[in-house]
């Protein structure tokens, strides 16, 4: 009996993606390896939106089902995961957070003329520029985060001098610093120095020596890095007695690493929404609670949110196009200008499948406690030539 049930369950499980009446969303994401921590929350959020759509009658009158294949945080596996899902009948692909790891699967979708969405890639290449005309990213470009930090710190904290500390390990970091470098001088600030380090460096003592050698402590330090390197840099900067306001990209969001620098203050993170329950928009907190219901814990960082946004936008575009055809859905997505979502308005164009401007919540960590201190939208969208630098 047990065997029979197992066999039936297996058969149903295998048959489910092939059912003609359903719409299949394929997740070619990391279910194991280091990237899993970034892919799983966003994928969970995407599935929450899928469940909501199904509960409201589905998409084009059909239910959405999902299949997944593990990329094992490996670029070569990403391509085969993508191909496997396409073979199994996926109608669109959702790929890993990171451009380098999501692109092989996205390229597989592109070659079939299918839509692909990066879960939370923030490099301009994750879209038209690096994959092709039917590829999108649901997140906000890294350069927008850096530019937001530059403009906000000057307007709200009267910052005049800035120091740029770039972790050269990944492209995302360079994107943040590019945005800061573009906006800070343009808004009248002066960059008084810059330095680089690597995420895995055992010590950044010589970088700190250079900051301390400045005649005056800079008002802000733009730290373009991610956890764990960022946490380690902050610990060392604060321990050395440097009290400048530290600006960051969204990648350091989440309070899980704050123990690395006990009692941290003057640390700013721009995010798409607050995980701390104090977001001014009720829809964000409603999502946080839905996420907690689905997984047993609140999101650990704001990187869950783009997953929800991407299904929301894609489903709207499919509904408007009346078809799942990649090119038709792309055309509808590109018509979106200031399309409302739970996490703020989103726009796409035939030049850019990314957000080159977005409303960001500013989270400040004071005495080890994060809280939203305002929201900011940059005055000018980041131009394409800056993004492609």
């Amino acid at each position, binding site marked *: 009996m047990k065997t029979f049930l197992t066999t039936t369950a297996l058969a149903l499980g295998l048959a489910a993606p092939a059912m003609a009446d359903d719409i299949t969303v394929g997740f070619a994401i990391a279910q194991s390896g280091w990237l899993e921590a970034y892919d799983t929350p966003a994928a969970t959020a995407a599935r929450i939106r899928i469940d909501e759509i199904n509960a409201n009658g589905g998409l084009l009158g059909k239910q959405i089902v999902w299949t997944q294949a593990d990329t094992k*945080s490996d670029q070569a596996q990403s391509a085969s995961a993508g191909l496997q899902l396409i073979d199994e009948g996926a109608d669109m692909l959702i790929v890993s957070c990171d451009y380098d790891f999501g692109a092989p699967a996205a390229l597989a979708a592109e070659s079939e003329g299918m839509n692909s969405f990066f879960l939370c890639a923030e490099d301009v290449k994750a879209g038209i520029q690096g994959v092709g005309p039917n590829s999108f990213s649901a997140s906000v470009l890294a350069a927008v985060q850096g530019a937001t930090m530059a403009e906000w710190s000057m307007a709200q904290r009267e910052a005049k001098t800035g120091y740029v500390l770039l972790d050269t390990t990944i492209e995302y970091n360079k994107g943040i610093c590019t945005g800061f470098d573009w906006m800070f001088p343009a808004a009248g600030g002066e960059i008084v120095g810059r330095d680089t380090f690597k995420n895995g460096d055992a010590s950044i*003592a010589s970088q700190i020596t250079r900051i301390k050698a400045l005649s005056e402590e800079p008002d802000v330090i733009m730290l373009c890095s991610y956890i764990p390197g960022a946490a380690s840099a902050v610990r060392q900067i604060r321990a050395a007695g440097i009290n400048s306001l530290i600006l960051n990209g969204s990648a350091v969001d989440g309070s899980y690493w704050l123990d690395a620098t006990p009692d941290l203050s003057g640390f700013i993170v721009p995010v798409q929404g607050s995980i701390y329950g104090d977001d001014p928009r009720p829809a964000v907190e409603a999502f946080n609670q839905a996420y907690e219901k689905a997984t047993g814990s609140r999101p650990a960082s704001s990187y869950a949110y783009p997953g929800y946004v991407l299904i929301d936008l894609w489903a709207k575009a499919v509904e408007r196009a009346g078809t799942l055809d990649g090119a038709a859905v792309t055309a509808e997505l590109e018509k979106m200008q200031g399309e409302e979502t739970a996490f703020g308005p989103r726009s796409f164009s035939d030049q850019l499948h990314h957000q080159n401007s977005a409303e960001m919540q500013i989270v400040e960590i004071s005495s080890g406690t994060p809280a939203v201190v305002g929201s900011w939208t940059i005055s000018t969208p980041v131009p394409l030539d800056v993004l492609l630098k």
Partner: protein
Amino acid sequence: MGTVAQLFFDAVSLGGIYAMAALGIALIFGVMNLVNFAHGEYIAFCVFALIVPSTDAVAVMFLGKAPALVLIPALLILGALMAMTSEYVVFRHFRRADPVAMMIASFALGFVIQNGLLAIYGSRPKAISLWPSLNTPIHVAGADVPLLQLIVIIATLLVVSGLALLLKKTRIGLEMRAAAENFTMARMLGVRANVVITGAFALSGALAAAVAMIMVTQTGVADVRMGGSIMLVAFIATVIGGMGSLPGAVAAGFLIGAVSVLLQAFLPLDARPFRDAFLYTLVIVCLLLRPQGLFASPNSKPRV
């Protein structure tokens, strides 16, 4: 004056970490010609032993809660046990295998440890606040030096002189030196192979634990991949120090740390992202000029 002193302390403290890691690799290479690529994972293992096993994003201190007097010996012993276990379970079966097979086995072991940590702790990096007050700078000779940097420098000197004493003055030390020189001959003369090799692994594991404590105090984070980069530097240090030469590994560890800090300090900004490329170019030059390593022991040359 202040700048020179600052550079000196930055260089020596980074070099000290590298030297300790290199020593751990050189010890094992000396007795059994094994380049243990799992050494970086021993370091990561010791770091994670500080926190409660869980895939939750927020880390809860486990061993890390203990007072320093308990924590330090406990972690050193744990590192030693980890290394001894891996010797017993894996490397003992490769005694007669050629060094390439052993090296591959060490890669495989490293992979198993890393994935074990991933499975138990999840892939998100964790924050660990171990002795944060040690990062507070104090004023020495015109430079601001975090207390930890001084501790690293002193600890490295203590470890190196302690090891030198052990190797020179004790029976096991004598046996290790004999084994490093000519393992077969040493065995024929009554040196107990298992004791010597297990002893070398225990010391190597304890050194990995020491590096782990320094790294975690300095950076405040635990990441499953954190041992990889330091392992690479340490391995290179053992190569340019002269494979199997313990003083060579220590000297080369300090040298790499110093050169790395000097490059970071004096390279122009545009070239600074390529610091490691410059560093490794110097390593290549070093090896072209002295393929046997800078401080090779005379007996490492093939004798005809």
